[in-house]
């Protein structure tokens, strides 16, 4: 049994496997299928200052080896989270992390301030990259200046571990990562979904109500891996890698590329117990190759 512990900022994780925001609900939805306390961290659904109904149906399209979504950050708002959901999940013995979204700097700051008060939420993941919000989300994540501004503002009020989630819909992701690091992020996670589109040829109209949506699943893995490698080489803070991870091998690829931890998203829809299988698979790989700690393979890629 290898040592699977990793650290993101000052926060300790029992293993490097987390669930990706928007794909694992609040954890509860999966409690019949998987022992939640074995997972390194659970990143809950995107949370905003006010309630959001999200985009109209249809919000999903299956694509070769993946899917497009245009959920549009449907959630009941941060107050509802604090009152109704937090009490139900706060005693799950893992790192429960809230994914924070917003359409203005004030939104992000206010939401982060409220989450900061929750004792059992040790970190937030700042989503400056969701492609589904008409204003705000996308504009922050694609510009180093805007990304820096929002991270700086949140850093000034948020005292715990601050993870910033990056969008792949940019030319130079390393540049954004550096800007975010310089303004106080403890870690960056990437990638969020890639902007895509699907068309119904019989109806001759887009499948999604929003025309375009975010692509996820194994179809995006090579791009995600490349970006994680680029960012890991560009910053000193720990990188959390995600995008298309379906099994332990995919996860190990991200670790070798320089990710300190990984997240699993869309794969939960195919196999709701995939997270624990990936944890076991990483452990077996380390044991088989006589590594004492998972830290020994982080960034161990030889080029």
């Amino acid at each position, binding site marked *: 049994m290898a040592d699977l512990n990793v650290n993101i900022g000052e926060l300790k994780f029992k293993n490097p496997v987390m669930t990706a925001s*928007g*794909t*694992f*609900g609040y954890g509860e*939805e*999966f409690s*019949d*299928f998987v022992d939640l306390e074995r997972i390194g961290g659970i990143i809950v*659904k995107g949370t905003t200052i006010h309630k959001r*109904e*999200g985009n*109209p*149906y*249809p*919000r*999903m*399209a*299956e*694509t*070769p*080896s*993946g*899917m497009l*979504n245009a*959920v549009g950050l*449907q959630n009941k708002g941060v107050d509802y989270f604090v009152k109704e959901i937090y009490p139900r999940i706060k005693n799950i013995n893992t790192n429960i992390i809230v994914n924070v979204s917003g359409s203005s700097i004030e939104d992000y700051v206010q939401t982060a301030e409220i989450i900061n008060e929750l004792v059992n939420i040790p970190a937030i993941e700042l989503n400056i990259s969701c492609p589904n919000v008409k204003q705000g989300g996308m504009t922050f994540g694609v510009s180093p200046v805007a990304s820096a501004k929002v991270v700086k503002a949140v850093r000034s009020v948020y005292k715990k571990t601050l993870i910033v989630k990056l969008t792949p819909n940019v030319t130079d992701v390393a540049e954004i990562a550096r800007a975010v690091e310089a303004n106080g992020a403890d870690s960056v996670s990437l990638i969020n979904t890639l902007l895509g589109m699907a068309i119904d040829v019989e109806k001759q109209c887009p499948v999604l109500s929003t025309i375009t949506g975010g692509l996820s*699943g*194994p179809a995006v893995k090579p791009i995600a891996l490349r970006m994680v490698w680029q960012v890991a080489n560009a910053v000193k803070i720990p990188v959390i890698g995600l995008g298309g991870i379906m099994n332990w091998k995919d996860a190990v690829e991200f670790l070798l590329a320089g990710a300190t931890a990984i997240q699993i998203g*869309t794969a*939960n*829809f*195919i*196999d*709701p*117990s995939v997270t624990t299988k990936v944890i076991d698979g990483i452990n077996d790989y380390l044991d088989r190759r006589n590594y004492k700690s998972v830290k020994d393979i982080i960034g161990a890629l030889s080029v």
Partner: protein
Amino acid sequence: MHTKYKSKNLLFFMKKFILDLIVTDNTFLQENFVLLKLTSELPLPEMKPGQFAELRIDGSPTTFLRRPISINFVDRQRNEIWFSIHIIGEGTKWLSLLPIGSKLNVLLPLGNGFSLPETPSDKPLLIGGGIGIAPLLFLGEQLSKQGNKPTFILGARGSNDLLQLEDFSRYGDVYVTTEDASYGEKGFVTQHSILNKVNFDRIYSCGPKPMMIAVAKYAKSKSIFCEVSLDNMMACGVGACLCCVENTKDGHLCVCKEGPVFNINQLLWQI
């Protein structure tokens, strides 16, 4: 005996399972329809009519997601679960070709299910169209078991699309409409003459949306309790991704979790 289903809260205690089931039978009922029967080494979990399963398709990259399929019937004696499947694309085609003895990975039971009557005197009417009749067999059996003998109106394009009529008639009176008059009365389910002869207390419906809207209109005009089962496109099937939402009086609700069965008063349909 029906008290089991009384409380809506009970749903929260209905554990979901991820199971590798074994195919015991896979037979064509009609040209594009199969009846897939599966068993498990352990006794199958508790399931309610109207609930569904998410079936894992291992075929190809274009069938990446699981496919939601209604629970058609549960045979406790043989420890079998049935799925009645309309072959419309690659995933359902793959399911239709599963050989006996092969394994199929399923998540079940998912969703809320129909709410069963609490008084034995209630006369339920079950209206289905196309493959939407699938969940009504299990519902009909459970209703007849608790003393609410069901009446079925089953609609199809033609006699080649009619499924399991003998199974249905085991649990209640079966009336059929076909659009081409090849079986039963010609026309749509809401035009069947039985509706002018008998008064029903509750209506359950599943089928194409225009049909369910017509049924909902009929139920509303007569002030009859009516539940419909929706088939929105799904990804996770467990209420996590929020892809399958229906706009309701309570905002966007997940069809996979808060549904697939909704009371028509909850929906925003123009009825």
